[in-house]
């Protein structure tokens, strides 16, 4: 018995290591790079300078919305949360976060809408609407420069794991996984485009190709579309799990919101 174990254990360890390396070739923490670093000098400058960053307008819109009384409660965000620069500092950096009542993580858009419906008694803002993007950009700006700090604990771990599985799963007519491009081939060229590692450091962000601000879910839809995979509905649990996994994968990286991307 003992002899058999001694033979089996190393073999098992090798097999497990092989499976692990096949299943998930994770980028070492120290080698992670934001998509920012792959951009041209011009586009970097656009992101860095608030006066040239096209997303700055949305941040200003968000600031105005922060103090606007809404819904049948006729309360503004500021009525309860006061100065966003203090109360919302570092908040976006730890979203998606676990919501005890919903028993699952909510992303920052869903969290804002929860206050819309429950605290302001107003209708939720549609995904990708101007106002929701503006509020998200305004809140995100309050975390700019701070490290991404989503919480990995007993509550969130199953959802991080669910996101990881979606990330690693082959999908769509082209039968590709997110991991195929963003881990295994990051830095390589997909046609003319250098593949980024796919870190969600700057959302919502202004994408030159969109000529508008867009959420992380919009970005994920774009990638799924490229894979010829069926996109999830905006707000779907799968997106939030994926967002949570991506934020966890980018833990410690710097929030750039509102970023600019080509």
């Amino acid at each position, binding site marked *: 018995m003992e002899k058999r174990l001694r033979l089996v254990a190393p073999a098992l360890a090798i097999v497990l290591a092989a499976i692990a390396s096949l299943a998930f070739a994770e980028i070492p923490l120290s080698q992670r790079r934001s998509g920012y670093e792959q951009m041209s000098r011009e586009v970097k400058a656009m992101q860095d300078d608030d006066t040239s960053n096209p997303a700055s307008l949305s941040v200003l819109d968000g600031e105005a919305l922060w103090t606007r009384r809404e819904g049948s409660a006729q309360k503004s965000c500021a009525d309860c949360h006061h100065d966003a620069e203090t109360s919302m500092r570092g908040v976006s950096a730890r979203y998606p976060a676990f919501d005890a009542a919903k028993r699952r993580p909510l992303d920052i858009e869903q969290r804002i809408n929860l206050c819309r419906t429950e605290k302001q008694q107003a209708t939720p803002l549609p995904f990708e609407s101007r106002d929701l993007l503006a509020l998200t950009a305004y809140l995100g700006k309050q975390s700019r420069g701070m490290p991404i700090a989503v919480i990995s604990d007993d509550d969130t771990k199953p959802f991080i794991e669910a996101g990881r599985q979606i990330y690693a799963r082959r999908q769509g007519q082209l039968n590709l996984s997110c991991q195929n491009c963003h881990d295994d081939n990051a830095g390589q060229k*997909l046609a003319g485009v250098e593949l980024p590692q796919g870190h969600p450091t700057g959302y919502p962000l202004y994408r030159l190709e969109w000529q508008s601000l867009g959420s992380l879910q919009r970005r994920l839809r774009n990638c799924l579309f490229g894979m010829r995979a069926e996109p999830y509905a905006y707000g779907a649990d799968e997106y939030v799990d994926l967002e949570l996994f991506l934020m966890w994968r980018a833990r410690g990286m710097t929030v750039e919101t509102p970023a600019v991307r080509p």
Partner: protein
Amino acid sequence: MVATLMLGASASARAQGVRPYTVVGDAIPASLTGAPGDPERGLKIVTNRQVGLCLLCHSGPYPEERFQGTMAPTLAGAGTRWSEGQLRLRMVDAARISPETIMPPYYRVDGLTRVAPGFRGKTILTAEQIEDVVAYLKTLKN
């Protein structure tokens, strides 16, 4: 030893328009359509980013194409390295050659997950297009 396998011959595959073919070892020796393809049409498919998608990942002997991929080896010389039948199997379902490959299965509809509605039940290329591409790849000698 020659392993012969019937693939794509199930009733459901036929209903979806995938023609049956025979894999012999690491090749599909016979044309999917029973006729040879047209290399000129094959070149157009290979260099078309919406149809063949090849240059997303591959580069090739196309100095006029500015944006070529670096995720896969060059197509130059493919006709020297591989036989017609090997190229055909590579195109039909590259995963049968290397299971972990990222090269899409151009003539397979089974075993795929969450395919977008517009592409569901359809192969990436038709049998005729596969034959055109194979005929073209055969001309890539070095």
